């Protein structure tokens, strides 16, 4: 964990080669698998097998272009915008709930249509949550560590966001932003007993929501034993598990999967991981898990370096992104393997979807920006160890 990654200097920016490799890997594998699992769907819907691959190519292109722009924004700007951004995010969440503005898909209103482009609002809110939390704990560090109020104030705002998300409903995203908030506060030094109570309260609330809403309860129960009702409530999970079993060690081969052919629902979005499992086998599955693990490690490690050079905001941004990506990818993969109840969360940087892809690209761009600024500061600081001097 204390490996040192030799940064690359490109112009006035510093780049983390491993982080770039991981991102490239995830994007590439994701794109190939999205293509593989959507050819039949495009052919059926529009008589054009390349319908989804072309759209996803546009998503990735837009995401990378926007990411390049985001990368050039100095971190202190984000720090300044943090509170306003959060208000903006809440505004989006309200907007999507206004009848006529939000787009309803499968009974949930999660999308805003902007110029024919559908954006899942909760994705944007996740990134905003990271920025807001980072700026909050940077500004009120002592208060977070010493007073209950400092801990509760941001949670109040997050509760509003969660309630709005649950109205869509988007239970998964609500859990993700809460986890981001709690995780960042944990790292910022919140008192453990206070934190423990908070965590317990959040878990109790989540459990209550599950029990109160029969639709969620059914999903939860079905995940515990999908084979009890494999035709109805357990259908998705049974199909996903079959994909894993069929994949064995090395998979049935790229493009040769059967499960994606109308057995797996949402094969190219939420259940992309199952398609990977069937077509690329355990080898592909472990590769993806390792890539996400590396991404998390790089994020936390970059954050740690930011703390060393004293840039608290940069550090918490990196931690937040690490927690977000780690948690969301864990949920998605866990759901695919029947370890967690079914949640509509995408696999970061891999699943099909415009909004998700663009926001995730922006998030990794900010992470890269953190790394670049931290490396720049490290390079300009007095050298503590010879190894740093040789790095540039």
């Amino acid at each position: 964990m204390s490996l040192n990654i030799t940064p690359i200097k490109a112009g006035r920016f510093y780049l983390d080669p491993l982080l770039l490799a991981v991102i490239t890997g995830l994007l590439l594998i994701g794109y190939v698998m999205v293509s593989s699992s959507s050819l039949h769907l495009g052919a059926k819907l529009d008589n054009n097998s390349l319908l989804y691959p072309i759209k996803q190519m546009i998503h990735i292109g837009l995401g990378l272009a926007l990411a390049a722009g985001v990368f050039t924004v100095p971190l202190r700007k984000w720090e300044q915008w943090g509170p306003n951004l959060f208000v903006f995010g809440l505004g989006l969440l309200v907007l999507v709930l206004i009848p006529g503005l939000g787009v309803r898909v499968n009974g949930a209103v999660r999308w805003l249509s902007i110029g024919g482009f559908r954006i899942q609002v909760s994705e944007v809110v996740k990134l905003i949550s990271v920025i807001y939390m980072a700026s909050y704990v940077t500004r009120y560090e002592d208060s977070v560590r010493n007073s209950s109020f400092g801990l509760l104030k941001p949670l109040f705002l997050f509760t509003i966001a969660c309630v709005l998300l649950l109205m869509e409903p988007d239970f998964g995203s609500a859990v993700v932003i809460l986890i981001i908030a709690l995780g960042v506060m944990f790292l910022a030094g919140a008192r453990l007993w206070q934190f423990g109570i908070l965590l317990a309260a959040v878990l109790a609330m989540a459990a209550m929501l599950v029990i109160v809403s029969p639709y969620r309860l059914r999903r939860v129960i079905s995940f515990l034993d999908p084979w009890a009702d494999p035709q109805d409530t357990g259908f998705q999970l049974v199909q996903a598990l079959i994909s894993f079993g069929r994949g064995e060690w090395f998979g049935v081969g790229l493009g040769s999967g059967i499960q994606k052919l109308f057995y797996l629902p949402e094969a190219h979005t939420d259940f992309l991981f199952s398609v990977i499992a069937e077509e690329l086998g355990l080898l592909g599955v472990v590769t993806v898990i390792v890539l996400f693990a590396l991404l998390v490690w790089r994020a936390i490690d970059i954050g740690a370096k930011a703390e060393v050079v004293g840039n608290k905001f940069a550090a918490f941004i990196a931690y937040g992104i690490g927690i977000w990506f780690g948690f969301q990818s864990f949920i998605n993969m866990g759901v695919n393997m029947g370890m967690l109840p079914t949640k509509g969360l995408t696999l970061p940087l891999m699943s099909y979807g415009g909004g998700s892809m663009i926001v995730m690209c922006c998030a990794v761009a900010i992470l890269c920006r953190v790394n670049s600024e931290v490396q720049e500061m490290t390079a300009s600081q007095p050298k503590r160890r010879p190894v740093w001097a040789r790095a540039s």
Partner: protein
Amino acid sequence: MHGFSTRKKKDEPETDFTVRRKVLLVFMLGAMGLLAVRAFDLQVLRKQFLKQQGDMRHVSAVSVSAYRGMILDRNGEPLAISSPVQSIWVNPQELADAEPAAIGQMEKLLDLPDRKIKNLIVPGTKRRFAYVKRRINPHLAAQVKALDVPGVYFEREFKRYYPAGPVSAHLVGFTNVDDVGQEGIELAYDAVLRGTAGSKRVIRDGKRQIIGDVEAISAPIDGRNVQLSIDERIQYLAYRELQAAVLEHRAKAAALVVLDAKTGEVLADANHPAFNPNTRTHLKGSAFRNRAITDVFEPGSTVKPFVIAAALDGGYIKPDLKIETNGTYRIGRNVVRDVHNYGTLDLTHVLKKSSNVATSIVALEMPPDYFWGIYNQLGFGNAAGIGFPGEASGSVLDYQRWNQFAQATLSFGYGMNASVLQLARAYTALADNGLLHSVSLLKRDRDPEAKRVFSAKTAQLIRTMLEQVVLKDGTAYQARVDGYRVAGKTGTAKKAGEGGYKEKKYLSIFVGMAPASDPRVVIAVMVDEPSAGAYYGGAVAGPVFSKVMAGALRILDVAPDQEETMPVLISKTPDLVAQ
């Protein structure tokens, strides 16, 4: 970095939180490790169970239809063949997404009533399968396919095609929409023709569409061909002449059977009314009936030769017997009548003039059991055993219940009934020198079941007598065939109905054989209710017999046995002779 952190922990209070960071990182990486363990569990340890569950959902067995065997005539010409066609079915649930315009176009292409397909679209329907149209031309199916309507599917099937159309329709029969024999040979030999459907394992996608073959479970065993004894050329001729006769005489129905006199094979079996098995719609069941085999009638005078033959063979009369007829013959309270008073007749003229009185006198010379025994041996009252669905057996009253008048009427073919096929078969006993042949619809070289009913001498004698029938002064001059000696007998039976025999409703019958010197072919013709004036067997059925017999003999390459009536041949024209 580790060393750096510990040192920092000693210096500053916030080092506490670097531990938290490490705890979080370990926790998250641990969670990722857990995912990998779970993946190993599913993909390696539980793969057997999961793959089996997958196969249960993906793989299923489907049947592979076997090719139905052909029905051939004796020369190998096809009478029924199966050709591949397409059937169209829809999934009404998926059809809901289709454009109404495209469905309308499809209805128009398939010539379906408006909204027939659209009406299948019911919101919330549980139906996933409905045939739209079956067995259509593959070309038409391609046009429908080009419309690309969602929820419309195609299935390959076989359609039965009958190249001979109505000509042999009654005999060959037909299959239903599921390719199962319904009538005729198609029904009788269904098990042979059908073969055994095979099955294969296929993979289906989530919408139950077949996306690939896994393995063949059992190969389909194609049905075997059935080769009939029918000669399509004679069959066509018989059909054509029968149709012409029905039109000319405005008859209700007609039937005709051509038998090979040596083997008992059925060379032709024509009927009217006919139907086209390829396009049968809105037809009454009566059109499907193979009257020659399934319908019985009173054979009338056509049985008279058997009475004479039986009496001669049994020694009850002498060949030179002369019979005083007087035109009427009283038996108890009943009277047998002839059309005219023929006076004194020898046996030849009994048949030539078809005297009911003389035949009755001869019949009453015989004991009832003997007389009945001959009829029974000739196959009257028993099915010919040809294996055709609905084959009639006819009936002859049991001799124990006969009185003298009953015995007399039986001698001129009343009080009994038989089918055209039975009648033709009985004549084989005269044609093949006393040997009665079994009949067969399948091609064969010889008859293993021939049995002697009459002595050869008697049979030859009767044939000689029957030759007189087709002479200029006989009852059936129109039945003669140029170049061949013909022996035959007419019959004109009054039709029985409710309340007795009907006036002016007749059956016109002619049964005969040629060449009379050594008969090859036996033909029986029955015309039901000719209503254009003529109704005598010789006038109505005779010409049909003549034309069909002339054609059959030529087709079978039978040598003429009567040079003087040979049509003039080109080789005998003076020019050629001069050379």
